[in-house]
């Protein structure tokens, strides 16, 4: 990605007799050229002096987008188009294999010692697409709308730590929190797009019809047109505070069918689409296309329903972990695209990731032994039974329409049957899958989390928390979670999260499987797009250009 090209004068020349004057001139030009090159390369896109302006980049989306960041539906396609038109206070950058929080609308921020109050300084010169300046009032309006109980704000949970927002002056915002919270800066970059107060004040924030038809943001691209079921088009915002985009515009083409998206990519009608592992072979070998494995902060797992008494014994949960060969899943089902997952914190979180924890290497013998210790023995019919005669049944749920997940669940079924469990598969439509997940009508269920690059696990793991869908209760872990997220000293906080990961690995709240990359099929003319999941790559569209 960082292809530095030396100025022409420094290119290799065939051996030729040169006079001293020519040699000195050559040296001077070399020196100037290298200095100029390094100045350009330091503050500009990697190949700025080779980048060309112009052109329209086309991306496939699976459905119609609604470019309004505050409320549900808040579908993925909405979030994607919003990333190009709206700005957040901070955004995420991949550097050195880890994700870092970098300024976007905010240029700097500080907090008090107790982490209960944060002050964000907004950058100068940020304007809305209609020319009005973006101020702290807009930030206050956005956060208050998100926290308003009458507004169906999809991201309310993300900023739920905030109790009050104050616009100290037009360029300074102060957040007062309900409890000490180290993660406020990183969470403010998670889809909390700032919206214009002057256009939304007084509107029905659940259905601001005129704003939805003509969205106005502060991002590198402005809304141009939307044709239902066809496309949404945005054009370059020349006054963007981060520098005018290199592209003229972006077209998001609505293509509902996965095979049709691939066909259009191969025909050259689009530049980018996300693909599934089975489609990789169809893209590779194509001269104008490449497959990119973009890192993403995620983990795939088998959820365990902690309401079921048989899972109360940690040895049972550990046994279920030992029985799965995660290396084999990554190698054979994911075709090598992925890493074995050890816990809920992804390696992209850099120092926060603890690699030295219980990894449960594949062993059916250990699994069988642990089940035996917990009182489950194989009966004459080969099925595990407890001393009281209860059979070890597993109702295993998975979502329909995800071939990779269906393969993993089928593999797991075989493994658990070898242990002696009576496994029933329940592969259902997405809405039904989600309803059973929320209502805990399963024993095991395959799911995934895509999360902000934040080590805080409170929402998913704290007893009784709103997003703790598995009914997991661990009072010792609860105390550690609260302590870690309130700890102002970062090295101490990192150590606490390492301890949390070790504890989680021993206690097995869910069975961690793998961290897969996002598979992207991209046209080779696309340059400057960071190799990261597209939820984050799309925040860097002002740097993208097209090679002719």
């Amino acid at each position, binding site marked *: 990605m960082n292809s530095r090209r030396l100025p022409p004068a420094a290119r290799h020349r065939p051996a030729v007799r040169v006079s001293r004057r020519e040699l000195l001139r050559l040296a001077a030009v070399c020196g100037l050229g290298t200095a100029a090159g390094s100045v350009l390369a330091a503050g500009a896109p990697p190949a700025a002096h080779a980048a060309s302006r112009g052109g329209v980049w086309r991306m496939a989306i699976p459905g119609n987008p609604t470019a309004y960041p505050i409320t549900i*539906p808040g579908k993925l396609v909405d979030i994607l188009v919003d990333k190009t038109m709206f700005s957040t206070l901070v955004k995420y950058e991949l550097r050195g294999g880890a994700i870092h929080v970098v300024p976007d609308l905010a240029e700097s921020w500080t907090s008090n010692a107790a982490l209960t109050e944060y002050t964000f300084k907004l950058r100068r010169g940020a304007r809305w697409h209609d020319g009005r300046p973006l101020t702290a009032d807009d930030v206050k309006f956005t956060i208050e709308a998100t926290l308003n109980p009458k507004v169906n704000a999809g991201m309310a949970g993300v900023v739920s730590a905030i109790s009050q927002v104050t616009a100290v002056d037009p360029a300074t915002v102060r957040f007062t929190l309900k409890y000490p919270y180290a993660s406020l800066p990183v969470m403010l970059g998670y889809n909390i797009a700032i919206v214009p107060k002057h256009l939304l004040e007084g509107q029905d924030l659940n259905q601001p019809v005129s704003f939805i038809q003509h969205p106005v943001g502060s991002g590198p691209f402005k809304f141009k047109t939307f044709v239902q079921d066809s*496309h949404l088009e945005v054009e370059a915002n020349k006054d963007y505070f981060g520098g005018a985009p290199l592209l003229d515009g972006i077209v998001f083409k609505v293509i509902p069918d996965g095979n049709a998206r691939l066909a259009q990519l191969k025909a050259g009608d689009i530049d980018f689409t996300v693909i599934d592992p089975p489609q990789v072979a169809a893209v590779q070998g194509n001269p104008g296309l490449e497959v990119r494995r973009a890192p993403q902060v995620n983990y795939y797992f088998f959820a365990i329903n902690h309401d079921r008494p048989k899972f109360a014994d940690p040895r049972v949960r550990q046994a279920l972990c030992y029985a799965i060969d995660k290396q084999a899943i990554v190698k054979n089902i994911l075709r090598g695209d992925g890493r074995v997952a050890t816990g809920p914190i992804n390696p992209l979180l850099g120092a926060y990731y603890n690699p030295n924890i219980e990894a449960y290497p594949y062993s059916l013998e250990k699994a069988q032994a642990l089940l035996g210790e917990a009182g489950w023995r194989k009966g004459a019919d080969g099925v595990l039974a407890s001393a009281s005669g209860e059979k070890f049944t597993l109702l295993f749920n998975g979502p329909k329409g995800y071939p990779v997940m269906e393969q993993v669940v089928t593999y797991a079924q075989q493994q658990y049957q070898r242990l002696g469990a009576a496994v029933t598969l329940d592969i259902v439509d997405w*809405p039904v899958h989600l309803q059973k997940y*929320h209502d805990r009508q399963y024993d095991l269920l395959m799911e995934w989390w895509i999360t902000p690059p934040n080590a805080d696990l409170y929402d998913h793991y704290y007893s009784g928390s709103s997003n703790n869908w598995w009914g997991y209760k661990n009072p010792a872990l609860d105390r550690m979670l609260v302590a870690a997220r309130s700890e102002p000293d970062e090295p101490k906080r990192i150590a606490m999260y390492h301890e949390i990961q070790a504890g989680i690995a021993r206690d097995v709240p869910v069975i961690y499987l793998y961290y897969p990359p996002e598979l992207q099929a991209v046209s080779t003319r696309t340059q400057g797009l960071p190799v990261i999941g597209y939820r984050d790559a799309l925040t860097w569209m002002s740097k993208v250009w097209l090679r002719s």
Partner: protein
Amino acid sequence: MAGYVLRRLAQAVVLLWIVTVVTFALIHTAPGGPAMLQNPDLGREQIARFRANLGLDDPLPVQYGRWLRAALRGDFGRSYNTVEPVLRLVATRLPNTLLLTGLALGLAVLAAVPLGVASATRRNTPVDHAIAAVSFMGISTPVFWLGIVLIVVFSVQLRVLPAGGMYLVGAAFSVGDRLRHLLLPVFVLTIANLAEVTRYTRSAMIGALGEDYVRTAHAKGLPAAAVLFRHALRNALIPVITIVGVYLPRAVSATAITETVFSWPGMGQLAVQSAATRDYPVVLGATLAVAVFAVGSSLLTDLAYGLADPRIRLG
């Protein structure tokens, strides 16, 4: 005649009302809720709060009453997924589907009638067998497979036709561009219809050719062509009108697969996506639109019979 039409219209209104009640009950009893409540970042409390805000916790008859009162005012609500008014959504999608199905049905009938006649007059000859074989292939080929194969051949490999959509995004309006985008989806739908209409025409034609008046016409010394086209075919067309009449209601609903494969923004795709995402207002609006079309076209077909066949007296 007027009395007949009025009675049919009254029946239609009652029928449409029953359709809305049944549809409403069905979609609300389907497991899983609206997709917009399925954002994975939503927590339990938030989902409960949003449901209450949207009125989804009220008893079903209350929710239905709310919908019906608004619908009678002409307000069919807004899509949960895109906030677009349902009436406008349906009004823009319906012509797109009718364009596809109208062309497909028209071409199918135009092609099928001569093929059916040829089959019937050359019964059990190689020509008949060949047409029968092609017909059966047409009926048996799955639409999604045929569609994808055509896209792969003509779009990806030969690059002569677009891979989907109604028109080239960003370009000015051009009839040629629209026709190029119509070619493959219309072809796929025509093949599907062609087979059935050919077989029906063939059977109807064979039946007509066996009638006494045909033998009389031959006996009178009429040339074979005159017998065929002036007498037999016109009577054979009555069953064909039946078939077209049966196809008409399907014209707005049976295109879901074709539209999905070709990214064609029509009613079929709307119906499937809104059902899958439990977009209640859109499902109700789309179903009602299809029902209106079905009831209306059925009425028109019956009236057409009355005109085409003097033996049929309506009312």
